[in-house]
């Protein structure tokens, strides 16, 4: 078991968004979270990487434990560095949000942070190429990583964001409707990508497309009005 959520409650501005969430997620699986808009599915994701700490109006209580680097840790333990946690639990957003810089700069970003170990230039380049290859972008941008990230197509940008999130070798990858702004071709490529990535991370993906869930998910959770209504393992 990779992630265990016990009795998670989340409220924003006193409005209850998530209530009594109990969830167990296994290693190396793809878990899909579905539900009508506003049901709290994206919130569930952002509770896992503590992104809510930037906002004062958010109130979280409950217990979330995850197995990272062999140890079972309590995600909300104050002693754990949030920066480190977020590198181990990566996130990809709904609309691709590459930084307004070159492709290479986007991928260099995680290396600049103080929580990233110090690598030599050679090693850094290797990691970048590795990440690009994983998302199958390498062939497409190979020698032109100096190009601005904005010049890529939507699907490519999203894969770039995934590559960027993969650089710190996360053990859990969170994706919030990653293909909703993409055409079906790009969508298929990303779905195939996720199935490959499953081998090295545990993936949680928010999706509102039944067919997508059927195609990729090993575990399906349906959230409605802040509560889990379906929990199916395939």
């Amino acid at each position, binding site marked *: 078991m990779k992630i265990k959520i016990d009795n998670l409650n989340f409220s924003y501005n006193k409005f209850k968004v998530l209530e009594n969430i109990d969830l167990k997620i296994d290693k190396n699986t793809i878990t899909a979270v579905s539900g009508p808009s506003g049901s709290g599915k994206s919130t569930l994701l952002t509770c896992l*990487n503590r*992104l809510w700490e*930037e906002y004062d109006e958010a109130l979280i209580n409950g217990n979330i434990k995850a197995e990272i680097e062999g140890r079972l840790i309590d995600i909300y333990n104050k002693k754990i560095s*949030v*920066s*480190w*946690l*977020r*590198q181990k639990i*990566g*996130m990809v*957003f709904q*609309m691709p*949000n*590459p*930084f*307004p*810089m070159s492709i290479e*700069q986007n991928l260099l*970003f*995680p290396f*600049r*942070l*103080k*929580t*990233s170990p110090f690598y030599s230039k050679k090693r850094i380049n290797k990691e970048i190429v590795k990440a690009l290859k994983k998302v199958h972008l390498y062939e497409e941008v190979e020698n032109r990583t100096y190009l601005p990230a904005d010049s890529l197509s939507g699907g490519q940008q999203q894969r770039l*964001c995934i590559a*960027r*999130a993969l650089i*710190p070798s996360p053990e859990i990858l969170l994706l919030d409707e990653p293909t909703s702004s993409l055409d079906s071709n790009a969508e298929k490529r990303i779905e195939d990508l996720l199935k490959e990535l499953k081998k090295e991370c545990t993936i949680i993906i928010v999706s509102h497309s039944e067919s997508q869930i059927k195609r990729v998910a090993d575990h399906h959770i349906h959230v409605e009005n802040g509560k889990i209504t379906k929990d199916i393992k395939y």
Partner: protein
Amino acid sequence: MQKKIVPGYILSENREQILNIYNLFLKFIIFSGAILSSVLIFLILLIMIFLALPFFSHEGISIFSGSWNPVSGSYGIAPMIAGTVLTAVPALIIAFPLSLGYSVFAAETGNRYLKKPAILLIRAASSIPTVVYAFAGIFIIVPLIRKIGHGGSGYSILSASLVLAVLISPTMIFFFYDSLKSVNKYTQQGALALGASKSEKVLFLLIPSAKRGIFAGVFLGLGRALGDTMISLMLAGNSASFPDSAFESARTLTAHIALVMAADYDSPEFRSVFACGIILYLITAFLSITARYIYKGRIQ
């Protein structure tokens, strides 16, 4: 006469006769305002050129010659150009990092209760007249420089630069602050999700993203520094020769114009101020155009 049912602000026919005059007035100021403004810009330059011409056609004139000594017939304004550059550029060098730091504080890293007052303070500071800065500078900075410079009058490039730096900071701080604040929030979230701390986000995402605004702000600050009159007039000493050190006195183009106005109307001395004016006009116009070009796409 039928009374139409209309919203209150459209009045009945009786009074429209009189009101048409107001409408005409409005029309007048709108169109003549536009014409006037566009004409003015060129008129200013043209008049200066017209009045400076005798200067250029005068015998033995070379404005870019090195010395200004009307008595002996040399009217070079090169020392003044040097004076302008030597006061403005150091001011910019001092002000730039500090303004950037302050804007980062007000936009991101500052304590949440201090952020708003921080930007308010700067707005208020930008309404302080330059003559007041210069005046205070005489009593605060000049004695200090006198001490550090081991004698000398204290009226020097250094004094002027220091006070100039404080003068141009609010303008730059605004620009930087606006640029930092307008980086897409969504993109910022991406940085946070990758594990960046707030200061890492500022240094590695916000500032690179705000590059354009930062450049534009620098150009604007430089323009302000080059164009200021009172600070260099009152603090830089006004000797019309090339300064040898930072503690020496110098004269800027702007101060030169102010000082020479007391001379004869037809003398070459006098005409030289128009040459100065033209140079200043061209430089600041260039800076404004470049700043706008860099910033293009951000403002309407």
